[in-house]
Protein backbone atom coordinates (compact mmCIF):
# COMPACT_ATOMS: atom_id res chain seq x y z
CA UNK A 1 0.00 0.00 0.00
CA UNK A 2 1.45 3.38 -0.94
CA UNK A 3 1.66 6.22 1.57
CA UNK A 4 -0.81 8.20 -0.54
CA UNK A 5 -3.38 5.39 -0.34
CA UNK A 6 -2.86 5.13 3.43
CA UNK A 7 -3.37 8.88 3.81
CA UNK A 8 -6.59 8.75 1.79
CA UNK A 9 -7.93 5.93 3.99
CA UNK A 10 -6.90 7.93 7.06
CA UNK A 11 -8.81 10.96 5.81
CA UNK A 12 -12.00 9.02 5.10
CA UNK A 13 -11.76 7.41 8.53
CA UNK A 14 -12.18 10.88 10.14
CA UNK A 15 -15.43 11.48 8.27
CA UNK A 16 -16.70 8.17 9.64
CA UNK A 17 -15.21 8.08 13.12
CA UNK A 18 -17.95 6.11 14.87
CA UNK A 19 -20.57 8.01 16.83
CA UNK A 20 -18.44 11.18 16.78
CA UNK A 21 -17.91 11.18 12.99
CA UNK A 22 -16.96 14.58 11.58
CA UNK A 23 -19.64 14.24 8.87
CA UNK A 24 -22.38 13.82 11.47
CA UNK A 25 -24.66 10.99 12.53
CA UNK A 26 -26.60 10.16 9.37
CA UNK A 27 -23.88 10.51 6.75
CA UNK A 28 -20.82 9.88 8.90
CA UNK A 29 -21.70 7.28 11.50
CA UNK A 30 -24.56 5.45 9.82
CA UNK A 31 -23.32 5.59 6.22
CA UNK A 32 -19.55 5.95 5.77
CA UNK A 33 -18.79 4.12 9.00
CA UNK A 34 -20.67 0.94 8.00
CA UNK A 35 -18.18 -1.71 6.83
CA UNK A 36 -20.22 -2.48 3.71
CA UNK A 37 -20.06 1.15 2.52
CA UNK A 38 -16.46 1.53 3.70
CA UNK A 39 -15.41 -1.56 1.77
CA UNK A 40 -16.53 0.12 -1.45
CA UNK A 41 -14.55 3.29 -0.62
CA UNK A 42 -11.45 1.35 0.44
CA UNK A 43 -11.87 -0.67 -2.76
CA UNK A 44 -11.84 2.50 -4.85
CA UNK A 45 -8.68 3.67 -3.05
CA UNK A 46 -6.91 0.31 -3.35
CA UNK A 47 -8.12 -0.31 -6.90
CA UNK A 48 -10.16 -3.47 -6.33
CA UNK A 49 -13.76 -2.60 -5.52
CA UNK A 50 -15.36 -6.04 -5.73
CA UNK A 51 -12.51 -7.72 -3.85
CA UNK A 52 -12.82 -5.27 -0.96
CA UNK A 53 -16.62 -5.57 -0.89
CA UNK A 54 -16.26 -9.35 -0.56
CA UNK A 55 -14.01 -8.75 2.47
CA UNK A 56 -16.39 -6.08 3.78
CA UNK A 57 -19.47 -8.33 3.79
CA UNK A 58 -18.38 -10.63 6.66
CA UNK A 59 -17.12 -7.58 8.56
CA UNK A 60 -20.53 -5.96 8.17
CA UNK A 61 -22.34 -9.12 9.23
CA UNK A 62 -20.24 -9.29 12.40
CA UNK A 63 -21.45 -5.83 13.52
CA UNK A 64 -24.82 -5.56 11.76
CA UNK A 65 -26.58 -4.10 14.80
CA UNK A 66 -24.56 -1.75 16.92
CA UNK A 67 -26.65 0.23 19.35
CA UNK A 68 -24.73 2.67 21.54
CA UNK A 69 -26.99 3.30 24.53
CA UNK A 70 -25.67 6.11 26.69
CA UNK A 71 -22.41 6.24 24.78
CA UNK A 72 -21.15 2.77 25.66
CA UNK A 73 -20.00 0.84 22.63
CA UNK A 74 -19.21 -2.82 22.01
CA UNK A 75 -17.07 -2.06 18.99
CA UNK A 76 -15.56 0.85 17.11
CA UNK A 77 -16.58 0.49 13.49
CA UNK A 78 -14.07 3.01 12.20
CA UNK A 79 -11.33 0.59 13.21
CA UNK A 80 -13.18 -2.31 11.56
CA UNK A 81 -13.87 -0.34 8.39
CA UNK A 82 -10.65 1.57 7.84
CA UNK A 83 -8.03 -0.56 9.60
CA UNK A 84 -9.61 -4.03 9.43
CA UNK A 85 -10.80 -4.00 5.81
CA UNK A 86 -7.59 -2.70 4.16
CA UNK A 87 -5.34 -4.97 6.24
CA UNK A 88 -7.56 -8.02 5.75
CA UNK A 89 -7.65 -7.35 2.01
CA UNK A 90 -3.86 -7.05 1.82
CA UNK A 91 -3.49 -10.23 3.88
CA UNK A 92 -5.94 -12.28 1.81
CA UNK A 93 -4.21 -11.16 -1.40
CA UNK A 94 -0.75 -11.98 -0.02
CA UNK A 95 -1.90 -15.43 1.06
CA UNK A 96 -3.37 -16.03 -2.38
CA UNK A 97 -6.84 -16.76 -0.96
CA UNK A 98 -9.84 -16.00 -3.18
CA UNK A 99 -11.77 -13.12 -1.51
CA UNK A 100 -15.02 -14.93 -2.35
CA UNK A 101 -14.01 -18.14 -0.54
CA UNK A 102 -15.09 -19.40 2.87
CA UNK A 103 -11.55 -19.00 4.18
CA UNK A 104 -11.56 -15.29 3.31
CA UNK A 105 -14.98 -14.92 4.97
CA UNK A 106 -13.78 -16.56 8.19
CA UNK A 107 -10.50 -14.65 8.22
CA UNK A 108 -12.34 -11.35 7.75
CA UNK A 109 -14.79 -12.20 10.56
CA UNK A 110 -11.95 -12.79 13.01
CA UNK A 111 -10.17 -9.58 11.98
CA UNK A 112 -13.47 -7.69 12.25
CA UNK A 113 -14.05 -8.86 15.82
CA UNK A 114 -10.47 -8.08 16.80
CA UNK A 115 -10.14 -4.60 15.27
CA UNK A 116 -13.62 -3.65 16.47
CA UNK A 117 -13.00 -4.44 20.12
CA UNK A 118 -9.45 -3.09 20.23
CA UNK A 119 -10.62 0.02 18.36
CA UNK A 120 -12.89 1.02 21.24
CA UNK A 121 -9.90 2.86 22.69
CA UNK A 122 -10.08 5.23 19.71
CA UNK A 123 -13.73 5.98 20.49
CA UNK A 124 -13.12 6.71 24.16
CA UNK A 125 -9.97 8.65 23.30
CA UNK A 126 -11.86 10.94 20.93
CA UNK A 127 -14.64 11.49 23.46
CA UNK A 128 -12.06 12.36 26.14
CA UNK A 129 -10.20 14.76 23.89
CA UNK A 130 -13.46 16.53 23.03
CA UNK A 131 -13.71 17.48 26.71
CA UNK A 132 -10.89 19.99 26.08
CA UNK A 133 -12.89 21.77 23.38
CA UNK A 134 -16.02 21.72 25.49
CA UNK A 135 -14.17 23.31 28.41
CA UNK A 136 -12.93 26.06 26.12
CA UNK A 137 -16.55 26.47 25.04
CA UNK A 138 -17.94 26.76 28.58
CA UNK A 139 -15.26 29.33 29.51
CA UNK A 140 -16.23 31.54 26.56
CA UNK A 141 -19.95 31.02 27.23
CA UNK A 142 -19.47 32.31 30.79
CA UNK A 143 -18.30 35.57 29.22
CA UNK A 144 -21.45 35.65 27.05
CA UNK A 145 -19.67 34.80 23.81
CA UNK A 146 -21.94 32.19 22.26
CA UNK A 147 -20.43 32.31 18.77
CA UNK A 148 -17.92 29.82 20.16
CA UNK A 149 -20.55 27.06 20.24
CA UNK A 150 -20.42 26.39 16.49
CA UNK A 151 -16.63 26.22 16.55
CA UNK A 152 -16.64 23.85 19.51
CA UNK A 153 -19.23 21.64 17.89
CA UNK A 154 -17.99 21.51 14.32
CA UNK A 155 -14.38 22.68 14.01
CA UNK A 156 -12.36 21.87 17.10
CA UNK A 157 -13.22 18.13 17.15
CA UNK A 158 -11.32 17.91 13.86
CA UNK A 159 -8.15 18.10 15.97
CA UNK A 160 -9.38 15.06 17.96
CA UNK A 161 -9.98 13.25 14.67
CA UNK A 162 -6.52 14.13 13.40
CA UNK A 163 -4.89 12.67 16.53
CA UNK A 164 -7.14 9.67 17.10
CA UNK A 165 -8.37 8.75 13.66
CA UNK A 166 -6.14 10.09 10.90
CA UNK A 167 -2.78 9.30 12.56
CA UNK A 168 -3.49 5.78 13.85
CA UNK A 169 -5.38 4.69 10.73
CA UNK A 170 -2.81 6.07 8.28
CA UNK A 171 0.17 4.68 10.21
CA UNK A 172 -1.40 1.26 10.78
CA UNK A 173 -2.44 0.98 7.13
CA UNK A 174 0.96 2.08 5.84
CA UNK A 175 3.29 0.17 8.17
CA UNK A 176 0.83 -2.59 9.07
CA UNK A 177 0.18 -3.64 5.48
CA UNK A 178 3.83 -4.59 4.97
CA UNK A 179 3.88 -6.66 8.15
CA UNK A 180 0.58 -8.34 7.30
CA UNK A 181 1.89 -9.19 3.83
CA UNK A 182 4.98 -10.84 5.32
CA UNK A 183 2.93 -12.97 7.74
CA UNK A 184 0.27 -13.98 5.22
CA UNK A 185 2.68 -14.83 2.42
CA UNK A 186 3.58 -18.03 4.26
CA UNK A 187 0.08 -18.74 5.57
CA UNK A 188 -0.88 -22.38 5.22
CA UNK A 189 -4.61 -22.96 5.83
CA UNK A 190 -4.12 -26.66 6.56
CA UNK A 191 -2.01 -26.15 9.69
CA UNK A 192 -3.98 -26.91 12.86
CA UNK A 193 -3.77 -23.46 14.45
CA UNK A 194 -4.72 -21.66 11.23
CA UNK A 195 -7.65 -24.05 10.90
CA UNK A 196 -8.64 -23.25 14.48
CA UNK A 197 -8.48 -19.50 13.77
CA UNK A 198 -10.66 -19.95 10.71
CA UNK A 199 -13.10 -21.95 12.83
CA UNK A 200 -13.21 -19.02 15.27
CA UNK A 201 -14.08 -16.84 12.27
CA UNK A 202 -16.96 -19.11 11.36
CA UNK A 203 -18.44 -19.04 14.89
CA UNK A 204 -18.01 -15.31 15.68
CA UNK A 205 -20.72 -14.04 13.27
CA UNK A 206 -23.18 -15.93 15.51
CA UNK A 207 -22.36 -13.36 18.21
CA UNK A 208 -23.02 -10.48 15.81
CA UNK A 209 -26.41 -11.93 14.88
CA UNK A 210 -27.16 -12.56 18.56
CA UNK A 211 -26.50 -8.87 19.35
CA UNK A 212 -29.07 -8.02 16.68
CA UNK A 213 -31.44 -10.69 17.97
CA UNK A 214 -31.26 -9.17 21.43
CA UNK A 215 -32.32 -5.79 20.07
CA UNK A 216 -35.51 -7.18 18.46
CA UNK A 217 -36.53 -9.87 20.96
CA UNK A 218 -38.30 -8.64 24.09
CA UNK A 219 -39.71 -11.87 25.46
CA UNK A 220 -38.55 -15.45 24.97
CA UNK A 221 -41.66 -16.38 22.96
CA UNK A 222 -40.54 -13.89 20.28
CA UNK A 223 -37.89 -16.46 19.39
CA UNK A 224 -40.61 -18.34 17.49
CA UNK A 225 -40.51 -15.64 14.80
CA UNK A 226 -36.74 -15.86 14.73
CA UNK A 227 -37.05 -19.62 14.20
CA UNK A 228 -39.60 -19.05 11.44
CA UNK A 229 -37.17 -16.80 9.59
CA UNK A 230 -34.36 -19.26 10.17
CA UNK A 231 -36.34 -22.18 8.78
CA UNK A 232 -37.53 -20.10 5.81
CA UNK A 233 -33.92 -19.50 4.78
CA UNK A 234 -32.24 -22.69 5.95
CA UNK A 235 -34.84 -25.32 5.03
CA UNK A 236 -36.89 -23.61 2.34
CA UNK A 237 -34.04 -21.71 0.75
CA UNK A 238 -35.73 -18.29 0.71
CA UNK A 239 -33.50 -15.26 0.15
CA UNK A 240 -33.42 -12.44 2.66
CA UNK A 241 -35.74 -10.26 0.55
CA UNK A 242 -38.23 -13.10 0.18
CA UNK A 243 -38.14 -13.73 3.93
CA UNK A 244 -38.75 -9.99 4.44
CA UNK A 245 -42.04 -10.34 2.55
CA UNK A 246 -43.15 -13.24 4.77
CA UNK A 247 -42.11 -11.20 7.83
CA UNK A 248 -44.15 -8.29 6.47
CA UNK A 249 -47.27 -10.46 6.34
CA UNK A 250 -46.89 -11.35 10.01
CA UNK A 251 -46.21 -7.70 10.85
CA UNK A 252 -49.44 -6.64 9.14
CA UNK A 253 -51.47 -9.34 10.91
CA UNK A 254 -49.92 -8.31 14.23
CA UNK A 255 -50.74 -4.64 13.57
CA UNK A 256 -54.35 -5.36 12.68
CA UNK A 257 -54.83 -7.57 15.73
CA UNK A 258 -53.34 -4.97 18.06
CA UNK A 259 -55.57 -2.27 16.58
CA UNK A 260 -58.64 -4.49 17.10
CA UNK A 261 -57.54 -4.97 20.71
CA UNK A 262 -57.14 -1.23 21.19
CA UNK A 263 -60.59 -0.57 19.75
CA UNK A 264 -62.09 -3.27 21.98
CA UNK A 265 -60.35 -1.80 25.04
CA UNK A 266 -61.76 1.60 24.26
CA UNK A 267 -65.25 0.06 24.17
CA UNK A 268 -64.50 -1.90 27.35
CA UNK A 269 -63.10 1.17 29.08
CA UNK A 270 -66.28 3.10 28.36
CA UNK A 271 -68.35 0.23 29.76
CA UNK A 272 -66.39 0.28 33.02
CA UNK A 273 -66.98 3.99 33.41
CA UNK A 274 -70.70 3.45 32.94
CA UNK A 275 -70.72 0.70 35.56
CA UNK A 276 -68.95 2.90 38.05
CA UNK A 277 -71.54 5.55 37.55
CA UNK A 278 -74.27 3.04 38.23
CA UNK A 279 -72.57 2.00 41.47
CA UNK A 280 -72.69 5.55 42.66
Amino acid sequence: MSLFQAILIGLVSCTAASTIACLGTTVGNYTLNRPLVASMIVGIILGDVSGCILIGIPMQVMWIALVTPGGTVASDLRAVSYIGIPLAYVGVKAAGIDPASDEAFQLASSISAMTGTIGITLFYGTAMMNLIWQHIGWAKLDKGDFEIVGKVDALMPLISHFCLSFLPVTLLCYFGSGAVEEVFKTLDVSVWYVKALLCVGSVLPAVGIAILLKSVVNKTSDLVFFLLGFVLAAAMGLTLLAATVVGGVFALINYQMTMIKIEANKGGGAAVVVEEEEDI
Partner: protein
Amino acid sequence: MKKISKKTLNSSFWRWWYGNLTCFSHEHMQTFGYMWAMIPILKELYPTHEEQAEKLQTYYAFFNTEPQIGCIVVGVTAGLEEARANGAEGIDDEMINGIRAGLMGPLAGIGDSLIVGTYIPILLGIAVGLAEGGSVIGPIFYIVVWNITSTWFQKFVFDKGYSLGGSAVELLVGEKATAFRESVIVMGQVIVGAMAASWVNITTPLQIATNSEGEPVMLQANLDGAFPKILTMLFVVFCWWLQAKKGLTPIKVLLLMAVIAFVGSVLGILG
Protein backbone atom coordinates in the same frame (compact mmCIF):
# COMPACT_ATOMS: atom_id res chain seq x y z
CA MET B 1 -46.46 38.34 17.10
CA LYS B 2 -43.00 36.97 16.46
CA LYS B 3 -42.75 34.06 14.07
CA ILE B 4 -39.66 32.04 13.25
CA SER B 5 -38.98 32.20 9.52
CA LYS B 6 -38.76 29.08 7.39
CA LYS B 7 -35.11 29.85 6.68
CA THR B 8 -34.19 29.98 10.35
CA LEU B 9 -36.03 26.74 11.08
CA ASN B 10 -34.17 25.06 8.26
CA SER B 11 -30.83 26.32 9.45
CA SER B 12 -31.62 25.06 12.96
CA PHE B 13 -32.64 21.67 11.55
CA TRP B 14 -29.52 21.22 9.40
CA ARG B 15 -27.26 22.27 12.26
CA TRP B 16 -28.80 19.57 14.45
CA TRP B 17 -28.86 17.01 11.61
CA TYR B 18 -25.17 17.56 11.10
CA GLY B 19 -23.80 18.51 14.47
CA ASN B 20 -25.78 16.52 17.04
CA LEU B 21 -22.85 14.30 17.97
CA THR B 22 -19.82 15.88 16.31
CA CYS B 23 -18.49 17.12 19.64
CA PHE B 24 -19.51 14.12 21.75
CA SER B 25 -17.95 13.59 25.16
CA HIS B 26 -19.21 11.46 27.98
CA GLU B 27 -19.71 14.55 30.12
CA HIS B 28 -21.96 16.63 27.86
CA MET B 29 -22.89 14.27 25.01
CA GLN B 30 -25.20 16.25 22.68
CA THR B 31 -25.37 19.51 24.64
CA PHE B 32 -23.15 21.54 22.29
CA GLY B 33 -24.95 20.28 19.19
CA TYR B 34 -28.24 21.30 20.79
CA MET B 35 -27.04 24.82 21.66
CA TRP B 36 -25.65 25.28 18.17
CA ALA B 37 -29.02 24.35 16.66
CA MET B 38 -30.89 26.77 18.95
CA ILE B 39 -28.69 29.81 18.26
CA PRO B 40 -30.29 30.85 14.92
CA ILE B 41 -33.72 30.67 16.53
CA LEU B 42 -32.70 32.73 19.58
CA LYS B 43 -31.00 35.29 17.34
CA GLU B 44 -34.18 35.80 15.36
CA LEU B 45 -36.55 35.92 18.33
CA TYR B 46 -34.59 38.16 20.69
CA PRO B 47 -33.17 41.50 19.61
CA THR B 48 -30.24 42.04 22.01
CA HIS B 49 -27.10 40.00 22.41
CA GLU B 50 -27.59 39.93 26.19
CA GLU B 51 -31.06 38.46 25.88
CA GLN B 52 -29.91 35.86 23.34
CA ALA B 53 -27.05 34.80 25.62
CA GLU B 54 -29.39 34.65 28.60
CA LYS B 55 -31.96 32.51 26.79
CA LEU B 56 -29.22 30.19 25.54
CA GLN B 57 -28.52 29.28 29.16
CA THR B 58 -31.72 27.22 29.11
CA TYR B 59 -29.92 24.82 26.79
CA TYR B 60 -26.81 24.47 28.95
CA ALA B 61 -28.55 21.47 30.49
CA PHE B 62 -27.32 17.98 29.64
CA PHE B 63 -28.95 16.43 26.59
CA ASN B 64 -28.64 12.97 25.09
CA THR B 65 -31.03 10.86 23.04
CA GLU B 66 -31.08 8.95 19.78
CA PRO B 67 -30.33 12.08 17.73
CA GLN B 68 -32.29 11.21 14.59
CA ILE B 69 -35.62 10.64 16.28
CA GLY B 70 -34.49 13.39 18.68
CA CYS B 71 -35.07 15.96 15.90
CA ILE B 72 -38.60 16.14 17.24
CA VAL B 73 -37.34 17.58 20.55
CA VAL B 74 -35.44 20.36 18.79
CA GLY B 75 -38.62 21.10 16.82
CA VAL B 76 -40.71 21.17 19.99
CA THR B 77 -38.31 23.55 21.77
CA ALA B 78 -38.25 25.83 18.71
CA GLY B 79 -42.03 26.11 19.06
CA LEU B 80 -41.78 26.68 22.82
CA GLU B 81 -39.12 29.35 22.39
CA GLU B 82 -41.34 31.15 19.89
CA ALA B 83 -44.23 31.07 22.37
CA ARG B 84 -41.95 32.34 25.15
CA ALA B 85 -40.75 35.23 22.97
CA ASN B 86 -44.40 36.13 22.39
CA GLY B 87 -44.92 36.34 26.13
CA ALA B 88 -46.83 33.10 26.69
CA GLU B 89 -47.22 32.39 30.39
CA GLY B 90 -45.64 29.48 32.21
CA ILE B 91 -42.87 28.85 29.71
CA ASP B 92 -39.60 29.15 31.59
CA ASP B 93 -36.27 27.33 31.79
CA GLU B 94 -37.70 24.76 34.14
CA MET B 95 -40.64 23.94 31.91
CA ILE B 96 -38.55 23.67 28.72
CA ASN B 97 -35.95 21.50 30.39
CA GLY B 98 -38.65 19.39 32.01
CA ILE B 99 -39.99 18.61 28.54
CA ARG B 100 -36.52 17.96 27.15
CA ALA B 101 -35.54 15.68 30.01
CA GLY B 102 -38.86 13.87 29.88
CA LEU B 103 -38.58 13.16 26.16
CA MET B 104 -34.97 12.15 25.79
CA GLY B 105 -35.24 8.81 27.62
CA PRO B 106 -38.31 7.35 25.88
CA LEU B 107 -37.20 8.67 22.48
CA ALA B 108 -33.75 7.13 22.91
CA GLY B 109 -35.44 3.80 23.63
CA ILE B 110 -37.63 4.02 20.53
CA GLY B 111 -34.87 5.33 18.29
CA ASP B 112 -32.34 2.73 19.39
CA SER B 113 -34.70 -0.20 18.97
CA LEU B 114 -36.50 0.95 15.83
CA ILE B 115 -33.95 2.92 13.79
CA VAL B 116 -30.60 1.52 14.93
CA GLY B 117 -31.75 -1.92 16.02
CA THR B 118 -34.27 -2.74 13.27
CA TYR B 119 -34.39 -0.38 10.29
CA ILE B 120 -30.64 -0.04 9.68
CA PRO B 121 -29.94 -3.79 10.06
CA ILE B 122 -32.79 -4.61 7.64
CA LEU B 123 -31.47 -2.15 5.06
CA LEU B 124 -27.92 -3.40 5.55
CA GLY B 125 -29.17 -6.98 5.30
CA ILE B 126 -30.78 -6.30 1.95
CA ALA B 127 -27.66 -4.40 0.85
CA VAL B 128 -25.41 -7.33 1.83
CA GLY B 129 -27.65 -9.59 -0.26
CA LEU B 130 -27.32 -7.22 -3.23
CA ALA B 131 -23.55 -6.99 -2.75
CA GLU B 132 -23.06 -10.74 -3.22
CA GLY B 133 -20.15 -11.51 -5.46
CA GLY B 134 -18.65 -8.08 -4.73
CA SER B 135 -21.28 -5.97 -6.52
CA VAL B 136 -21.35 -2.21 -5.86
CA ILE B 137 -25.16 -2.25 -6.09
CA GLY B 138 -25.28 -3.29 -2.42
CA PRO B 139 -23.41 -0.33 -0.89
CA ILE B 140 -24.97 2.15 -3.33
CA PHE B 141 -28.46 0.88 -2.51
CA TYR B 142 -27.76 1.40 1.19
CA ILE B 143 -26.20 4.87 0.76
CA VAL B 144 -29.13 6.16 -1.31
CA VAL B 145 -32.07 4.58 0.52
CA TRP B 146 -30.75 5.19 4.04
CA ASN B 147 -29.78 8.84 3.54
CA ILE B 148 -32.97 9.83 1.74
CA THR B 149 -35.40 8.04 4.06
CA SER B 150 -33.56 8.99 7.23
CA THR B 151 -33.18 12.67 6.36
CA TRP B 152 -36.80 12.86 5.24
CA PHE B 153 -37.93 11.28 8.51
CA GLN B 154 -35.81 13.67 10.58
CA LYS B 155 -37.17 16.72 8.77
CA PHE B 156 -40.71 15.36 9.12
CA VAL B 157 -40.54 14.89 12.91
CA PHE B 158 -38.71 18.21 13.33
CA ASP B 159 -41.49 20.07 11.48
CA LYS B 160 -44.19 18.14 13.36
CA GLY B 161 -42.49 18.96 16.65
CA TYR B 162 -42.46 22.66 15.79
CA SER B 163 -46.03 22.86 14.53
CA LEU B 164 -47.73 20.55 17.04
CA GLY B 165 -45.57 21.12 20.11
CA GLY B 166 -45.59 18.55 22.89
CA SER B 167 -48.56 16.69 21.42
CA ALA B 168 -46.39 15.79 18.40
CA VAL B 169 -44.78 13.18 20.58
CA GLU B 170 -48.08 11.25 20.45
CA LEU B 171 -47.09 10.53 16.84
CA LEU B 172 -44.18 8.49 18.13
CA VAL B 173 -45.38 7.08 21.45
CA GLY B 174 -49.16 6.89 21.02
CA GLU B 175 -51.11 3.61 20.88
CA LYS B 176 -51.13 3.49 17.10
CA ALA B 177 -47.42 4.24 16.86
CA THR B 178 -46.64 1.60 19.47
CA ALA B 179 -48.70 -0.98 17.60
CA PHE B 180 -46.92 -0.06 14.37
CA ARG B 181 -43.50 -0.24 16.03
CA GLU B 182 -44.16 -3.61 17.60
CA SER B 183 -45.36 -4.97 14.27
CA VAL B 184 -42.22 -3.78 12.47
CA ILE B 185 -40.20 -5.52 15.15
CA VAL B 186 -42.07 -8.79 14.43
CA MET B 187 -40.89 -8.44 10.84
CA GLY B 188 -37.41 -7.76 12.20
CA GLN B 189 -37.47 -11.01 14.16
CA VAL B 190 -38.27 -13.02 11.04
CA ILE B 191 -35.54 -11.24 9.09
CA VAL B 192 -32.92 -11.81 11.78
CA GLY B 193 -33.73 -15.52 11.58
CA ALA B 194 -33.20 -15.48 7.82
CA MET B 195 -29.96 -13.52 8.29
CA ALA B 196 -28.65 -16.08 10.77
CA ALA B 197 -29.37 -18.93 8.36
CA SER B 198 -27.92 -17.10 5.33
CA TRP B 199 -24.72 -15.74 6.83
CA VAL B 200 -23.63 -17.96 9.67
CA ASN B 201 -22.44 -21.45 8.92
CA ILE B 202 -21.18 -23.54 11.82
CA THR B 203 -20.44 -27.16 11.02
CA THR B 204 -18.95 -30.24 12.62
CA PRO B 205 -16.55 -32.66 10.90
CA LEU B 206 -17.42 -35.47 13.35
CA GLN B 207 -17.81 -38.94 11.96
CA ILE B 208 -20.23 -41.00 14.07
CA ALA B 209 -20.12 -44.40 12.41
CA THR B 210 -19.31 -46.33 9.27
CA ASN B 211 -22.18 -47.70 7.21
CA SER B 212 -22.45 -51.25 5.80
CA GLU B 213 -20.55 -50.27 2.67
CA GLY B 214 -17.67 -48.92 4.69
CA GLU B 215 -18.45 -45.25 3.95
CA PRO B 216 -18.23 -42.76 6.82
CA VAL B 217 -21.49 -41.52 8.36
CA MET B 218 -21.13 -37.80 9.09
CA LEU B 219 -22.92 -36.20 12.02
CA GLN B 220 -23.39 -32.98 10.02
CA ALA B 221 -25.34 -34.77 7.27
CA ASN B 222 -27.57 -36.44 9.85
CA LEU B 223 -28.23 -33.17 11.64
CA ASP B 224 -29.04 -31.40 8.39
CA GLY B 225 -31.44 -34.21 7.56
CA ALA B 226 -33.38 -33.53 10.75
CA PHE B 227 -33.15 -29.70 10.89
CA PRO B 228 -30.99 -27.88 8.35
CA LYS B 229 -28.23 -25.82 9.99
CA ILE B 230 -29.37 -26.74 13.49
CA LEU B 231 -25.86 -26.22 14.87
CA THR B 232 -25.82 -22.62 13.61
CA MET B 233 -29.25 -22.02 15.12
CA LEU B 234 -28.18 -23.40 18.50
CA PHE B 235 -25.06 -21.23 18.58
CA VAL B 236 -26.99 -18.04 17.78
CA VAL B 237 -29.65 -18.79 20.39
CA PHE B 238 -26.93 -19.67 22.93
CA CYS B 239 -25.15 -16.34 22.29
CA TRP B 240 -28.48 -14.53 22.63
CA TRP B 241 -29.24 -16.38 25.88
CA LEU B 242 -25.85 -15.46 27.35
CA GLN B 243 -26.48 -11.77 26.62
CA ALA B 244 -30.18 -11.48 27.29
CA LYS B 245 -30.63 -13.88 30.20
CA LYS B 246 -27.16 -14.07 31.75
CA GLY B 247 -26.32 -10.40 31.23
CA LEU B 248 -22.93 -11.01 29.59
CA THR B 249 -21.52 -8.12 27.53
CA PRO B 250 -21.03 -8.70 23.78
CA ILE B 251 -17.26 -8.62 24.24
CA LYS B 252 -17.34 -11.39 26.86
CA VAL B 253 -19.54 -13.50 24.58
CA LEU B 254 -17.12 -12.88 21.71
CA LEU B 255 -14.19 -14.06 23.82
CA LEU B 256 -16.09 -17.09 25.06
CA MET B 257 -17.09 -18.09 21.54
CA ALA B 258 -13.53 -17.61 20.29
CA VAL B 259 -12.29 -19.99 22.99
CA ILE B 260 -15.06 -22.54 22.29
CA ALA B 261 -14.37 -22.44 18.55
CA PHE B 262 -10.60 -22.70 18.97
CA VAL B 263 -10.80 -25.62 21.40
CA GLY B 264 -13.59 -27.24 19.36
CA SER B 265 -11.48 -27.09 16.22
CA VAL B 266 -8.39 -28.50 17.93
CA LEU B 267 -10.47 -31.39 19.33
CA GLY B 268 -11.99 -32.00 15.90
CA ILE B 269 -15.56 -31.26 16.98
CA LEU B 270 -16.09 -27.99 15.08
CA GLY B 271 -15.07 -26.48 11.77
